[in-house]
């Protein structure tokens, strides 16, 4: 037989709580304990409130450019639920829910977007990297962070997040290849939210799914409903277990949608069809989970009102913490250039001058 099948594959799509509220009892069994769900709902309410207020802070000039997370809350939260404290979250910028659950103080994210690097000084013990501004470069750091855990034989792993657009970047492919070839404990999660600013995901790839991007690197690939906390938690738990067992990386495509503009500097109405937005608003992951929890008797209106009220208070406190932090020292940006500041930099810092002669007033006297 001259032609045989060299390779065949298929991509599974996982859905547990669908947009119509139908719950798959078999797949969904024991994924998230019912005791934990109210705390999860409170967290989601708070994160959504903070996200909407952050938008207003930018509009009123109290914060710089901010990328809203609304609509994409579930993928990173599922990762945070699936990992341990010692594991790493290596994220992009629409992963606030997971980062906060993993222990990142929300003030850090606000400070970052308020133009203050101190927001990236992630507290010791919180294994997360700061918001990654250049698209698609952080997955290589996740490969290295996971590699270090493997070398140290700690059993810890790294989960990295990126968008559909980031899979067009070379570093994504290099990271996937390194992780798979070297069997590194890494989970790759692509948040396919349909859009890279104004460019639709169809332009990023001619493939039918983003999940299949991982196939050529020799790692299991799966697609899940990114607006379904249960589906995301299932695929994350499977991938985390695989990584922890030393079996290498997994690629997860979370199919979700950016319900807001790319950032506050963007206006999605210029390029996005209103009908498409309406379709996805109906799939909003928060009301979906809330309706299901209410139907199950795990959540009610008064709990929701209470969560809204405590969320508002917490948001106000976080904003005031972020806004009222003492301004950095004028020369603070010199302090962390190197462990030991070279003499030339000390001179620039102390003289506060970049005129090359002016740094030596004794020579000019």
């Amino acid at each position, binding site marked *: 037989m001259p032609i045989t099948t060299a390779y065949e594959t298929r991509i599974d799509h996982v859905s547990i709580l669908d947009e119509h509220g139908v719950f798959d009892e078999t797949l969904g069994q024991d994924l998230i304990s019912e005791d934990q769900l109210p705390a999860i709902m409170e967290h989601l309410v708070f994160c959504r409130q903070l996200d909407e207020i952050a938008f207003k802070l930018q509009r009123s000039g109290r914060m710089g450019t901010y990328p809203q997370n609304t609509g994409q809350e579930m993928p990173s939260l599922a990762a945070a639920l699936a990992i341990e404290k010692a594991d790493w979250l290596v994220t992009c910028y629409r992963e606030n829910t997971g980062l906060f659950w993993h222990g990142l103080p929300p003030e850090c994210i606000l400070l970052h977007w308020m133009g203050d690097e101190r927001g990236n000084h992630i507290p010791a013990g919180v294994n997360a990297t700061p918001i990654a501004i250049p698209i698609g470069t952080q997955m290589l750091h*996740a490969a*290295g962070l996971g*590699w270090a855990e493997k070398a140290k034989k700690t059993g810890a792993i790294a989960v990295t997040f990126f968008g559909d657009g980031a899979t067009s970047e070379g570093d994504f492919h290099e990271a996937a290849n390194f992780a798979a070839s070297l069997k590194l404990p890494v989970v790759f999660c692509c948040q396919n939210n349909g859009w890279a600013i104004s460019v639709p995901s169809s332009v990023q790839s001619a493939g039918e799914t983003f999940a299949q991007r991982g196939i050529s690197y020799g790692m299991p690939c799966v697609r899940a409903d990114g607006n379904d906390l249960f589906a995301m938690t299932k695929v994350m738990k499977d991938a985390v277990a695989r990584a922890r067992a030393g079996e290498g990386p997994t690629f997860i495509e979370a199919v979700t949608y950016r319900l807001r503009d790319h950032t506050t500097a963007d206006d999605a109405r210029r390029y996005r069809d209103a009908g498409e937005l309406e379709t996805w608003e109906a799939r909003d992951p928060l009301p979906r989970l809330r309706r299901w929890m209410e139907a199950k008797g795990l959540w009610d209106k008064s709990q929701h009102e209470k969560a809204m009220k405590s969320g508002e208070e917490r948001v106000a406190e976080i904003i005031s913490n972020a806004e009222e932090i003492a301004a950095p020292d004028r020369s603070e940006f010199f302090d*962390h250039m190197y*462990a030991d500041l070279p003499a*030339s930099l000390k001179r620039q810092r102390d003289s506060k001058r970049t005129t090359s002669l002016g740094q030596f007033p004794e020579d000019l006297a």
Partner: protein
Amino acid sequence: MTTAANETEMTLVQAVTDALACEMRLDDRVIILGEDVGLNGGVFRATEGLQAEFGADRVVDSPLAESGIIGSSIGLAMNGMRPVPELQFEGFMGPAYDQLCSHAARFRTRTRGRFTVPMTVRVPHGGGIHAPELHSDAPEAIYAHQPGLKVVMPATPYDAKGLLIASIRDPDPVIFFEPKRIYRAFREAVPNEAYTLPIGKARVVTEGTDLTVVAWGAMVVEAAKAAEQSKASIELIDLRTISPLDEDTILASVEKTGRCVVCQEAPLTLGLASEISSLVTERCFLHLEAPVQRVAGFDTIMPYYKLEMEYLPGPDRINAAIDETLRY
């Protein structure tokens, strides 16, 4: 020449290997990765025998991807390891530029010290070995211009070992350029044990009174030949570190000699020699008997190897610059 019992005569590339072996024996965190660094020992044999001694988990043949090598090294370094990635030739640094300058250089300041990148990137540097295109460039000024990186380039076996160990122990990212043209040019006695030389400290190769010549990497050898041929009393300085620059050693020398010639392989315009020229002009103005002169490659693409010696400054061009500066 006799060698003491605790020393071995070795070439520059052997000193690199020896430095890596010494530090790997002392520090479990040190891990080597790159293309062909394992069984093959690297294309220049700089990692010869290391995989046999330390195993494939510590001397890792990685996929062929420069950005991947540097990006994953950044993650290793941020998480408690001491990676020493090798990029095969300086001409292939382009794909890694983003990870080097957008991340390695910035993590310490970006995170206000929460994450640091103690990584040493070894890169064979420069022309003169009859190699193909993009195997002969001199890009050190590009990386010296990036705040957050350190750039080191030894010119002797002794310096190569001491500076490489110092680089691996340095808490910040170091680009360690190895002048491949003099990898095997000569041998000298190198101590067997691990030792360090300070990063940021130049070396006065020969003392002199008439004119200061500043060089680094393979140009130190060319400048030494020129100084030997010259009738004048030349003070030759080997920078050893490109960034941070040892301003004091250069300035003290030119204050004494009043004349300065700077030699580099890289194109003339906007190179490190230009920076040194500015420095000396501004800080030694009243001591100068002549303008600072730069001897460099041309502002062209480095030609293929049939003409590479036309491009690279040698003793004749350096001596012409010395004579012009003395006559000025």
